[in-house]
């Protein structure tokens, strides 16, 4: 199909429909209210359901109810709204329900600002709500990737019976880029009668529940979740390696919007003869630990340089993954400021020199 020029937020809505998701519940919040505005118009055209909820608490609980009934469903919000969804996130993980959440991250804490940020990394990867659980977290860097991962997120959430979160920022949501909605193939939802509350017709009743009064049973369930996250780490780790084939001396690590800036910076420094590559995690949970650890063991790699729009949240994961075998440098802009190419170039040049590469 021909490419369409589309704003990221609207592309999220259209991609969900292409993925076969016809239910969306949300509460408006900048910088992604256009998802709701788009779907308020578009879903009725395809026989879908949109309810503007009274809060993000309610929107996410509507997602819980609809997911329990065995249909594809999603919600989207931005940081302060996602904080309010923590309760439903925990319940849905505990009830093993598939669904997709989108967080278009804005700068915090508190009301913070509306501009792009990556300061919800810890909240996303560690689980915003209570209990020992994780969402799968996917961080696209372009509008096309946003569309592709939206379409893949639904079957992934059903594969694991676990919610998946797409994490972007205001830049991706507000930017217009050409997109192809057929670049990945949509997959149908598999049978739901065995677990969903669709009415117990001709079968035993189904129960959607996260209450275990017997601690041994709850421990067993916690172990089951741990095994599920382990399986994610074995089967569904995603990342991109950019200019990593010629034994680079320095590896930059960045995701989402920041990775795009870092690529530009690397191109400039490469032209000056500096061998720098980019490792871009796409699945933030499961984190590409094994792959980064492998890189850290290579002799030609002299250091890692993390660039983030936060005070250093993914930084901790990079240190853990690389065992700090090589120095890990860090550069960040915060508060809604996207690092510009010049300061990123300066940082990476200094890093390159510092590590003696």
């Amino acid at each position, binding site marked *: 199909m021909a490419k369409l020029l589309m704003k990221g937020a609207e592309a999220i809505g259209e991609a969900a429909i292409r993925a076969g998701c016809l*239910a969306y519940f949300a509460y408006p919040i900048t910088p992604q209210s256009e998802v709701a505005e788009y779907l308020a118009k578009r879903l009725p055209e395809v026989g879908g359901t949109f309810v503007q909820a009274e809060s993000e608490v309610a929107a996410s609980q509507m997602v819980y109810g609809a997911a329990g009934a065995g249909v594809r469903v999603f919600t989207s919000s931005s940081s302060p709204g996602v904080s309010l969804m923590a309760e439903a996130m925990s319940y849905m993980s505990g009830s093993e329900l598939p669904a997709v959440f989108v967080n278009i991250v804005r700068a915090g804490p508190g009301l913070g600002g509306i501009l792009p940020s990556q300061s919800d990394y810890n909240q996303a990867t560690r689980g915003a709500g209570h209990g020992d659980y994780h969402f799968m977290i996917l961080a696209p860097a372009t509008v096309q990737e946003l569309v592709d991962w939206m379409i893949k997120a639904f079957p992934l959430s059903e594969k694991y019976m676990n919610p998946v979160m797409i994490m972007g920022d205001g830049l991706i949501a507000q930017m217009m880029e050409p997109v192809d909605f057929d670049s990945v193939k949509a997959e149908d939802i598999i049978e739901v009668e065995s677990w969903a509350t669709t009415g117990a017709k001709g079968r035993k009743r189904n129960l959607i529940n996260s209450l275990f009064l017997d601690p041994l049973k709850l421990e067993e369930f916690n172990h089951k979740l741990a095994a599920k996250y382990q399986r994610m780490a074995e089967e569904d780790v995603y990342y991109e390696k950019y200019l990593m084939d010629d034994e680079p001396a320095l590896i930059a690590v960045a995701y989402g919007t920041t990775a795009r800036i870092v690529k530009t910076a690397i191109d400039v420094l490469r032209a000056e003869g500096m061998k720098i590559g980019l490792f871009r995690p796409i699945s933030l949970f499961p984190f590409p630990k094994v792959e980064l650890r492998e890189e850290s063991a290579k002799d030609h790699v002299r250091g890692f340089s993390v660039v983030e729009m936060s005070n250093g949240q993914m930084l901790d994961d990079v240190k853990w993954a690389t065992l700090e075998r090589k120095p890990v440098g860090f550069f960040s802009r915060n508060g809604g400021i996207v690092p510009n190419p010049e300061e990123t170039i300066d940082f990476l040049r200094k890093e390159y020199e510092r590590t003696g590469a």
Partner: protein
Amino acid sequence: MKTIFERPDSMTEKVTHYCPGCTHGVAHRLVAEVVDELGIKDRTVGFAPVGCSVLIYEYMDTDYQQAAHGRAPACATGTKRVRPDLMVYTYQGDGDLASIGTAEIIHAANRGEKITVVFINNAIYGMTGGQMAPTTMPGQRTTTSPMGRDTGSVGFPVRVSEMLSTLATPMYVVRASLHSPYNIIQAKKAVRKAFQYQLDGTCFSFVELLSTCPTNWGITPTGSNKWLEENMLPYYPLGVFRTPEDDLK
């Protein structure tokens, strides 16, 4: 031999965990009888609250989801909107519905969600050990109002049925009580009517059932029925507050 009394088909054989004299079990039975009578067992999805009745899903032999504290009306909205042919109801206590879940119940009612809400008002937080609820009576002693509810500092009991009745959206709102056989029969009629409105796709339906909590009230079961009658009935008048027929006139 003719059977004159048996377990409703929509209930499991599990023995309930409720305290002696607690009316949660009575309310469960009324709901199950109505589900049987309307022949909707295989298309009903209930939403359990957080409260003493959290385990209602163990007793009801239909599909069930367990909701977070107060959120059942939002969850039920999600299910009903994507599967309108299902009969969807919530079962909620007064802490659940009238305190932590105030926003969810008001907005589900105001949107006119075609769901049914069974609201158990026992004037207390039963499950957590008898703390004050928004519905606790003036002067009533609870573990968090040891000197009796002081309306000067915590306000008066919330009348949820009356509050919902101020909304313009057509709906069925009724308050009944479970403190005597006569009232239980009336309560059953209210529950049945509420489910019928949903079955007909007419409107949001809400049944408040005045209930007892002998354990946390610190009164015997029969004394509790009397306490309810003397203290709750004057403040929480029984009757139909709204019908869609009146609303749509």
